[in-house]
């Protein structure tokens, strides 16, 4: 597709609207500005969460107390989990890249409900603020883990209420984003863009929107029940009052398992955009990728019990959940097959986003396979609540969503900022980050198999060497992250001017200027071809 000619309209960054200064950002209903608001707040919270992680790893570099107390360690892993899950990877790609690019990729000027979009950002910031407040008020920060398991979550003297309520508020943000995207995709696709001509990133945002909409309310009500338990002694999860703590786990995971598909589906969508672009070849098996996204969202709803294999559930529940868990791996495998098939006999342009994409494939596969080991009942008995689980979810969530987020960041940076970054520093940062990542989390598989429990402040001497490797990996990874982020920040000032289409992409965002004008398109395009029409 040819580039639209430059027209007079200023970019969304230079646009002078009703408000001035900071208010032109925090009162803006432009989806692109809201995406940037999310980006900056998300990266801030990520920095907090990552620092907590680093401090935890430094504590674990030797048995016994190293730098913090046991209670502080418990508070740290709790806050690390709450921030990373609820404030980073769940909003993650949808809130940043979905907000910025969904309307553009479907040929629209904004989302269906722009004011609701801004409201969802307000909910986001409010929710995280409440969570952070829990650290500094009451009788000590929460120490239950991000999973808030009953009965400890209503017995602990830790400051649960702001943290739990903060998570509740964050749920609203997620629901509103999903709702907005669903209506946008249904009602605002450009003329000629049938469902099967829509690019794959919007498709994953669609599947994700349904999960956000239908799963989040369950954790909403569950968190309210925890608040009722703490304040009213209502008894739902208190065995002394007739309640069942396992029911809490059922309710919690009925959301929190589909939540991981909120994390990974848009990530897979971004990878599905990056690969065809740098292969200069249409994606292999477009319809299968669409179908697999929907299948993952659907089947993912029924497998939550695999987090509870050792909790005391009935035997019937155990094998039902294990079987369904294995089934959900199939559509993911379909995607991996299709991505690799796209690369086969392609003319590959080795750029930073593509390196992130193949890094994603590598770590996602490891995370996925380790998931099958955990999904199998007999092996899970030994591995549940060990570092094996910690390794699994960091490979698949940090490796999956995280790598895709950084890939998307490097892919769409020229479009968002109008600048090119230094790809040598970007690649160097990636390599250092990758080496640190593999060491940090790979070692955890072995520690887990040897029996080291998770969420433990102290450990037996036999785990010491492994922990040294792992913790050093954390330091290296952190260093790589710093290079990546500093490069992106400094390129804002020093980067070369970006053209409309630096990579040779075919989707609609590459037909408009970098950075885009406020209303995205001078004229809404009429679509006649599929999204990856390379010839």
């Amino acid at each position: 597709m040819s580039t639209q000619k430059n027209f007079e309209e200023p970019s969304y960054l230079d646009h002078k609207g009703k408000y001035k200064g900071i208010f032109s950002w925090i009162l803006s209903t432009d989806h692109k500005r809201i995406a940037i608001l999310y980006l900056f707040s998300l990266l801030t919270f990520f920095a907090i969460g990552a620092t907590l992680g680093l401090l935890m790893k430094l504590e674990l570099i030797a048995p016994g107390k190293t730098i913090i107390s046991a209670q502080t360690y418990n508070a740290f892993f709790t806050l690390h989990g709450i921030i990373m899950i609820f404030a980073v990877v769940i909003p993650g790609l949808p809130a940043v890249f979905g907000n910025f690019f969904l309307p553009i990729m479907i040929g629209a000027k904004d989302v269906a409900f722009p004011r609701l979009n801004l409201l969802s950002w307000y909910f986001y910031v409010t929710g995280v603020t409440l969570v952070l407040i829990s650290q500094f008020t009451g009788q000590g920060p929460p120490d239950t883990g991000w999973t808030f398991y009953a009965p400890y979550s209503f017995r602990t003297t830790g400051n649960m209420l702001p943290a739990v309520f903060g998570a509740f508020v964050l749920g609203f943000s997620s629901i509103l984003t999903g709702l907005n995207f669903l209506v946008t995709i249904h009602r605002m696709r450009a003329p000629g863009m049938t469902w099967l001509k829509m690019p794959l990133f919007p498709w994953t945002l669609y599947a994700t929107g349904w999960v956000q909409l239908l799963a989040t309310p369950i954790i909403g009500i569950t968190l309210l029940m925890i608040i009722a338990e703490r304040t009213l002694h209502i008894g739902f999860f208190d065995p002394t009052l007739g309640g069942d703590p396992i029911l809490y786990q059922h309710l919690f995971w009925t959301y929190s398992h589909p939540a991981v598909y909120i994390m990974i589906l848009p990530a897979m969508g971004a990878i599905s955009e990056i690969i065809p672009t740098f292969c200069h070849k249409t994606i292999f098996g477009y319809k299968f990728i669409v179908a697999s996204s929907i299948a993952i969202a659907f089947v993912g709803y029924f497998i939550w019990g695999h987090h509870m294999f050792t909790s005391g559930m009935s035997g019937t529940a155990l094998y039902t959940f294990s079987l369904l868990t294995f089934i959900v791996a199939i559509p993911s495998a379909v995607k991996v097959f299709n991505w690799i098939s796209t690369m086969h006999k392609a003319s590959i342009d080795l750029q930073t986003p593509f390196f992130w994409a193949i890094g994603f494939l590598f770590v996602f596969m490891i995370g996925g396979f380790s998931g099958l080991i955990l999904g199998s009942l007999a092996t899970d008995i030994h591995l549940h609540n060990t570092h094996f689980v910690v390794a699994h979810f960091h490979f698949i969530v940090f490796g999956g969503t995280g790598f895709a987020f950084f890939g998307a960041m490097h892919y769409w940076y020229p479009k968002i900022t109008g600048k090119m970054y230094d790809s040598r520093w970007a690649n160097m940062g990636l390599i250092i980050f990758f080496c640190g990542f593999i060491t940090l989390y790979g070692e955890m598989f072995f520690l887990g198999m040897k029996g080291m429990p998770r969420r433990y402040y102290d450990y037996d001497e036999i785990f010491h060497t492994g922990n040294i490797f792992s913790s050093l990996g954390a330091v290296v990874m952190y260093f790589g992250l710093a290079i990546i982020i500093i490069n992106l920040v400094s390129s804002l000032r020093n980067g070369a001017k970006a053209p409309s289409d630096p990579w040779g992409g075919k989707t609609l965002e590459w037909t408009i200027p970098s950075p885009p004008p406020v209303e995205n398109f001078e004229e809404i395009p009429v679509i006649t071809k599929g999204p990856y029409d390379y010839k």
Partner: protein
Amino acid sequence: MKTIENEKNHIIPYKTFLYVLAGLIALTLTSVTLTRISLGTLTVVIALIIAGIKSSFVLRIFMHLKFENKMFSRAVIGVITLLCAVIIITLLDYLNR
């Protein structure tokens, strides 16, 4: 996107609503009476079936689903089915402990 107002919208006559109300009240009183006299576990099943019938009237007439794009009805059925599936799977644990 072009301006889309309500397409020459289908107007439901007042009488239709009143007939449906009469039916709903009748069903309510029926379920109260039946549960007074009825037997064991069947009571709940009957009460829930009647509740289901009342709901379908509210959904189809009051909430206009009968006259909307079929997509809406399918979504409602989908959501209700999803909720039932989650309840059933959860009970799979409790029924077999």
